[in-house]
């Protein structure tokens, strides 16, 4: 998948969970990605983050720790 598209999709998820109450938003982003993204996509996201993860929402960065 084109990196910009992946970043866009991941950030959309982050934006939703940021609006939710509680202090577990990063976990919920991670859980959503685990539930819906196929391993190949998660792998691409991890690799992208390892490369600096430019443009990704901070919540996605934090979520990546538990991916």
């Amino acid at each position, binding site marked *: 998948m084109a990196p910009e598209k992946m970043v866009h999709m991941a950030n959309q998820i982050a934006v939703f969970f940021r*609006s939710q*109450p509680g202090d577990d938003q990063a976990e919920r982003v991670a859980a959503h990605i685990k*539930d*819906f993204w196929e391993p*190949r996509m998660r792998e691409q996201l991890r690799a992208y983050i390892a490369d600096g993860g430019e443009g990704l929402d901070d919540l996605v960065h934090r979520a990546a720790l538990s991916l």
Partner: protein
Amino acid sequence: MTATMGLDDRDMGTPAREGAPVRLTIDGFSVTVPAGTSVMRAAAEVGLSVPKLCATDSLEAFGSCRLCVVEIDGRRGTPASCTTPVTDGMVVHTQSERVRKIRKGVMELYVSDHPLDCLTCAANGDCELQDMAGAVGLRDVRYTPGENHYDPSGTGARSQAEARLRMPEGEANPRYIAKDASNPYFTYDPSKCIVCSRCVRACEEVQGTFALTIEGRGFDSRVKAGAASDDFFSSDCVSCGACVQACPTATLQEKSVAALGTPTRSVVTTCAYCGVGCSFKAELAGDTLVRMEPYKHGKANRGHSCVKGRFAYGYASHKDRILSPMIRDSVDEPWREVSWDEALTFAAGRLRAIQERYGQKSIGVITSSRCTNEETFLVQKLARAVFGNNNTDTCARVCHSPTGYGLGQTFGTSAGTQDFDSVEHTDTVIVIGANPTDGHPVFASRLKKRLRAGAKLIVIDPRRIDLVRSAHVEAAHHLPLRPGTNVAVVTAMAHVIVTERLYDEAFIRARCDWDEFLHFAEFVSDPARGPEETEALTGVPAADLRAAARLYATGGNGAIYYGLGVTEHSQGSTTVMGIANLAMLTGNIGRPGVGVNPLRGQNNVQGSCDMGSFPHELPGYRHVKNADVRAIFEAAWGVPIDPEPGLRIPNMLDAAVGGTFKGLYCQGEDILQSDPDTKHVASGLAAMECVIVHDLFLNETANYAHVFLPGSTFLEKDGTFTNAERRINRVREVMKPRNGYADWEVTQRLANAMGAGWSYTHPAEIMAEIAATTPSFAGVSYELLDEKGSVQWPVGDASPEGTPIMHVDSFVRGRGRFIVTDYVATDERTGARFPLLLTTGRILSQYNVGAQTRRTENVAWHEEDRLEIHPHDAEVRGIEDGDWVKLTSRAGETSMRALLTDRVGPGVVYTTFHHPRTQANVITTDFSDWATNCPEYKVTAVQVGLSNGPTDWQEDYTAQAERSRRIIAAE
């Protein structure tokens, strides 16, 4: 008449009533019926049919023909039995000398103005006038032909056959009106009309279109469609056929019956077009389908239908249908017709080779929302049990996946809460992002009937859909929001309900999580989320929004119906949650007349989702990560199930472009035409090494396919569809598959060519497997469906006959969950380059990508897709009605002709996507719903300008499509 198995579907004369029991005696038989029942219906209940012409049980009695007169002890005269309600102790005589004489006289008058051409009439054997002449014992007509409507020659002929022999030059009888054959499916022959007005009443009461009137008085009365200059086709008639069905004579007659003769047998089955899921009697002579008649015991449609289900079945026998399997090594070669064995061996060999080379997860399937539950179940099973991965998705991805997510999160179940009958108990209806008169016509007719009886309507849609104002229906509020601002509007409504304290605290305390409510209430109470602050953004006047919110909260039973205008957005799932919030806030859940009701696009969208088509869910919406759920299927199928979610359709295409996804089995879907960003879909398909298309026609996706497996139509197989109300309805084999195999058999043969060893001999066995593995289907069997007609899931120990209304005492998930819905603007924004917002939809006569309806006479109503544009936007661009215009977005460009209309507001343009040449999806982008990847079809920033005709891309595309459709026939 034709014999139908199962239920009695005699015409009882007048509609059923509910009321206290009333006991009376008719011709010596004692009968008990509900108060309000007519004497005619009561007589029919004991098998005594009173002669009748102007009455039929789909319409309120009218009492005009006087054929149904009876005598009642203690009453003077001879009252009409159709308009006389029963009373306790009444004693009725239906066959006295006196009434027999009256009836004979009435018939004699009718027949004196009717041609005696029965032997050659299209309705011969299916004509109530003929039947009644027999029933009353009419043996002679004593009147000599005088002034009449039937004799074109004006020479006193008694039959039209005779009149033709005597015909003078030119029109000789000024009262004679020639047949109107302008409608593609039926004719109107005024010379045979008895002016019973059943057609007029059917158009009003059943369909709600009011296209017909009775013109003139007395002997001069005529039925008229539209205004003086109109014929049927140019009038407001939407060709639903209700009038044709109601007509007792050959005056309104199906052309198919005129051509083929009266049917001799019938089979009850389910429409394969939209999510209403109407039941039909398919009426046949031998294996020739003569007519589709809506089935009056069908619980979704109650005897009504639209033009698609009733008339648009011609595609099943269209010459374009492919009946022989075909293969080719590469997509630039012509197709080669081969045997089934060769095609399946070729396909299986390629898929296995791809898996060996690129890995187990390099292939996948797409299930179809047009195929049966059983077929869909098998296709996802093919991926999970034979391919060994979860790469299964369905076109529901591109329409209602946010419904699954949003309602799952809030209520705990991925489905609508009501049955369609519920609308009869509604007081206030919100229709949001749906256009029922075009998309779900029979539901629209039922809704309009309720609106005419006084229910209030709120429409939330960028476009002024027909429901906003049509005959005898007017919305109390139309909120014409800017495309993409659904969440802001729905949240603003919650703001009004919370801040004005219009919410149902008792319900919320009893049924929902109170802490989550408090948080939600605080969130929506922020003035920034109120209608005044968001007006500039949404374009909805704050006062209107406030009034609408108040009406929904306080106007009695409130029901919300929504469609793809809600789901197909970046925030589709969020809007679904927002809708669920509104229903919980106002306590509008868990009883008739309320609820949250997604209107599903295709016939089996609900079913295909239920059956585990999604890559993360096994049948019954259970995530593949759950070991206990996997264990059920591992035990049933004897193979391990992958615990990781598979690829969704857009992900498959991305992975194909990326080189890790190489093979696809696509059943009954046309992703190249229906999915967004056509160029991206095309490059994904082009990158695959084995694309298997299983369909009726060489669709657009087949341009990129290596294997074509011919499909069967819904008329040619057994199975079930699940409609938008969770109703599981039987699809029955009406004729043998023209391609040789039902679709489930084809999937089974493909699986077996890959070594699966499946041995289903009938779809009933597949249903048994579904019931054994999926709790919501636990009690479903073909026996139950044959007995009940249909049932709504969940069907199990707690609800052995199904569940018409969900969440009655508690939510499926326990407590209802309020979820805050923060509005986030889509990244698809207008600007200097693309200043207009494009939104898309559908029209009545066409269905989805049009593969079926384009191959029927329905094309008469929609030859091409048009771009609706506001006159102001058109003027500044120098565009006039009918001009070719080019539509450009950041994804691509296409062209079509313009239609100037103020149905869309300034800044918004609208089109349909029924024709492949238009390629509306060339311009839609790859933005999608945040939770489910459901594409954002409903908002694309575009520019519109004059053009000379089709774009280069459209012409190249057409040329490529033609090249790729070449076929070399087998010897």
